[in-house]
């Protein structure tokens, strides 16, 4: 058995004070001057340890407050209030919600699984991945050795296709060359996001993080230079048709990405001839009816395909279809043709939480690409100011490479642990067995159809609670 894959995390403090969901509004006008003021009785000493962060005008009491509401309820003149922070509510967008962003910050800071307290107060179901539930039937007892202890759950995947069968010669030797595979210890591959206030240090930090984690970082071919050349083993150069192939960059890499387009076959052929030991991944947008394109890619001898959805987790050409449904269709189509194992399917676009990685794999992906979460790990607020040339509120470009790498390791460490939790609860001991296991999940649409299908459809805006 190979050595157990562990990600060692440690608390890496934020560079800026994180925005909090709520803030304290404490008035002193009308104060009775009680001898036993509720502010003095705060068990967290929030009022005594106050200071103001001038860069952001954030009061420390908002970060330290634990929302026990003791002061709010205890003040005899009701001079203390709690209010929703408008800046927090303005974070991100409808997909990258403030709560998702805040949870990613927390995971990148602590490296720990987010725990939201007792019970679940959210809706019964939601769009996209929220309409999927995974099987938890194995949670019948605590495991004796613990999934984070001696019990072994493998999260490793192989990149590359495998033949349908092996053929042997009369003498018992393999008739064909054995398949060339690259193994990754976790099914999560990193990707430089399409926007962000990035510097060379940021990219270098992500590269170092990818190396420490044993995974890959996909980035444009033309920015691989200088210190990044030393990290090539863990980089996936993204070949652009506009830029020439750089042989010195491709020498020593294990995987390259070629985008689907006019010249993709030419580029692929050239890489195969010049660098036969390099695995090629073909990137194509996840669109309706992409199955045909996937088949043509398999027929051309490419063994990895990256299906890219939108940053809001939808199919590229239809905003009403979520990537989970797109992945399922392709997986089922390939299984029906009996060629599923000839290709590795990687998916990406809008994957914002650890559960999205697990659920993508259940729908049929082998692994996932994540882009914006690695930016949010660096305290990004998804304000998109950088796309307009405005200054970054958290100065990501000023961050040290070591801090970037440590934050990334923390985030992926937390995601890895959550993947172990999901698989442990499902009783699955290998992430490769999780692929396409839709029978071990419940889909709200299917449940709804089976239960109420004969009664007609629910009107929009209604949901079960």
């Amino acid at each position, binding site marked *: 058995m190979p050595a157990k894959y562990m990600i060692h995390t440690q608390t890496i403090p934020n560079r800026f004070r994180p925005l909090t969901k709520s803030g304290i*509004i404490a008035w002193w006008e009308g104060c009775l001057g009680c001898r036993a003021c509720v502010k003095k009785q705060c068990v967290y000493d929030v009022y005594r340890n106050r200071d103001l962060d001038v860069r952001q005008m954030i009061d420390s009491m908002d970060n330290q407050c634990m929302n026990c509401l003791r002061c709010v309820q205890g003040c005899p003149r009701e001079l203390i209030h709690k209010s929703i922070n408008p800046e927090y509510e303005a974070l991100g967008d409808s997909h990258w919600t403030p709560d998702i962003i805040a949870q990613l910050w927390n995971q990148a800071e602590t490296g720990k699984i987010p725990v939201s307290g007792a019970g679940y107060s959210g809706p019964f179901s939601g769009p996209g991945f929220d309409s999927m539930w995974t099987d938890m039937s194995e949670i019948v007892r605590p495991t004796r050795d613990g999934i984070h202890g001696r019990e072994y759950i493998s999260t490793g995947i192989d990149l590359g296709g495998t033949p349908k069968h092996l053929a042997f010669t009369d003498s018992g030797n393999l008739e064909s060359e054995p398949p060339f595979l690259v193994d990754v210890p976790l099914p999560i591959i990193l990707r430089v996001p399409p926007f962000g206030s990035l510097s060379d240090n940021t990219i270098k930090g992500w590269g170092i993080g990818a190396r420490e984690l044993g995974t890959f970082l996909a980035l444009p071919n033309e920015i691989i230079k200088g210190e990044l050349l030393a990290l090539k083993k863990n980089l996936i150069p993204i070949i652009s048709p506009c830029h020439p192939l750089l042989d010195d960059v491709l020498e020593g890499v294990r995987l390259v990405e070629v985008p689907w387009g006019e010249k993709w076959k030419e580029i692929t052929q050239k890489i195969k001839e010049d660098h036969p030991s390099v695995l090629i991944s073909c990137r194509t947008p996840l669109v309706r009816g992409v199955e045909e394109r996937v088949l043509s890619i398999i027929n051309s001898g490419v063994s990895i395909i990256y299906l890219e959805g939108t940053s809001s987790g939808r199919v590229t050409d239809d905003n009403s279809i979520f990537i989970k449904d797109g992945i399922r269709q392709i997986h089922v189509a390939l299984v029906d043709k009996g060629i599923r194992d000839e290709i590795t399917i990687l998916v990406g676009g809008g994957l914002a939480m650890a559960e999205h990685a697990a659920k993508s794999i259940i729908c049929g992906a082998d692994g996932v690409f994540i882009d914006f979460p690695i930016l949010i790990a660096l305290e990004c607020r998804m304000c998109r100011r950088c796309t307009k040339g405005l200054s970054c509120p958290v100065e990501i470009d000023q961050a040290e490479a070591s801090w970037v790498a440590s934050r990334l390791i923390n985030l992926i460490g937390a995601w890895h642990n959550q993947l172990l939790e999901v698989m442990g609860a499902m009783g699955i001991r290998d992430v490769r067995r999780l692929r396409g296991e839709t029978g071990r999940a419940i889909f709200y649409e299917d449940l709804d159809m089976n239960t109420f299908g004969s009664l007609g459809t629910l009107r929009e805006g209604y949901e079960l609670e």
Partner: protein
Amino acid sequence: MTEGKKQTVAFFYCQQTPESSEQERQYLEEKYERSIRLFPIPCGGRIEPLHFLRALEEFANAAYVIVCPEGECRYFEGNLRAKKRVQRAREIIESIGLEGDRIGILSNSKENPKSLARLVDEIMCNTSRLEPSQVLNLHHSLARPFH
């Protein structure tokens, strides 16, 4: 930070101010570049003299708060309390020789509520005649390393 002749004004504004979403905020920052720093607050009553003083000390030539019209505060008295705090902060800076106009409050109109952009335009117009703050010059010269 103040750079050359560009002077920064700090704006604290109640989240109830009309048209004060993140998009409007970014539009204003694009328009005024580094001349403004915008800080949304849940209520005008959240502001304290310390906010103004720290802003003037660190980066701002002037600091203003934008609050709801009288009688419209969702916390009933937040805007009234903000006025008192502005008054207190003004007294403090006047006592050290700074012009009181560097700190101010602007109440929105009940009858014709103005957008954040219009209110900021008005304040920027008023503060443009202010001379560069001596406190900032002093602060920056003190912050400079000795040779």
